[in-house]
């Protein structure tokens, strides 16, 4: 669990920033280009998984610990629910009403801009945060489980 060779460590320390930036791009431009919150969140999680594979689990846990990851997960879910509830509070149209677009941006020349589509980019950011933190948590907990695995026992094999 101490990590891989120095070649892998050097390459991954350069590449991890690019992967993280690409994930942010996929999330932020989800309403303009192919992609969106789910795919971008998985890319964000995979940059941390690359860190975990190259440098070991302890290094990745120093960067993004388990309580912080679970807090980010909850924050993403809360933000998505808050965006949905804002539509309910803001007007009579109901849950998940795209209030920003319908109230302010409708009829203006905002298409193909980064700031367009009302609540959709906010929901994309929430979903991306949530999916990224969730998948990182899955791999973190699974690798913790793998570390405690004893070859003699067969109970830990069922997952």
């Amino acid at each position, binding site marked *: 669990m101490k990590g891989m060779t120095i070649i892998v460590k050097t390459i991954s320390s350069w590449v991890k920033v690019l992967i993280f930036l690409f994930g942010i791009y*996929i999330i932020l431009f*989800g*309403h*303009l*280009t*192919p*992609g*969106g*919150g*789910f*795919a971008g969140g*998985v*890319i964000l*999680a*995979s940059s941390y*998984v690359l860190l975990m*594979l190259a440098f070991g689990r302890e290094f990745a846990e120093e960067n993004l610990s*388990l309580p912080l990851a*679970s807090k980010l*997960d909850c924050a993403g*879910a809360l933000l*998505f*629910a808050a965006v*949905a509830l804002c539509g309910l509070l803001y007007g009579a149209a109901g*849950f*998940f009403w*795209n209030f920003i*677009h319908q109230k302010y*941006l*409708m009829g203006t020349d*905002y*298409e*193909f801009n980064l700031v*367009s*589509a*009302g*609540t*959709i980019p906010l*929901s*994309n950011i929430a*979903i991306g945060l*949530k*999916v990224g933190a*969730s*998948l990182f*948590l*899955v*791999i973190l*907990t*699974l*690798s*913790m*489980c*793998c570390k*405690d*695995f004893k*070859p003699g026992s067969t109970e830990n*094999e069922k*997952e």
Partner: protein
Amino acid sequence: MAVFYILLLFMIIAAIIAVETDNLLSSVICVGAIGFGGSLIFLFLRAPDIAITQIVVEVLGLIILIRATISRDRTFITGDREFFGMVVSIVIIFVIFLAGMKVFETLPTFGTPIFATVGDSASQAYISEGMQKTGATNLVTSVILDFRAYDTLGEATVLFTSIIGATVILRRKAKKLPEEPDQ
């Protein structure tokens, strides 16, 4: 059309190898090959959103599976094949194949979905009014986060609940029992 059949043949061969091989690592890699073939098919069907999601989740799932199989001691599958299980699975596959033949007769031909031909269906309304109503130029995002946002909420809830279960069950230290005294 020919590229779909080539990719489908590739995926079927990879699936057969993934089932038949004894080495766990090559089995996992063959499962990854099936996923990459699927993402290529999505790309040729002009669905780049699904292709991106498929390839990204495939890579992450492949890493998880390789990690889970390599860290174990046993990387080879041993044991004899059961005759009864094989017969049962062949019969079940044959029944599903017959049912599938019946179902495929009623489907519209490949490449002409029924929503494209019926005039006032929901997807026609999404395509014609989606950009004006939501402002998003990527119609897939406008469907999954505006028109069909309840589905996304349900998916997020499922993911959230499963992560809660995984972190609670697989955590290393259990919480203190209520009858234990504080230190």
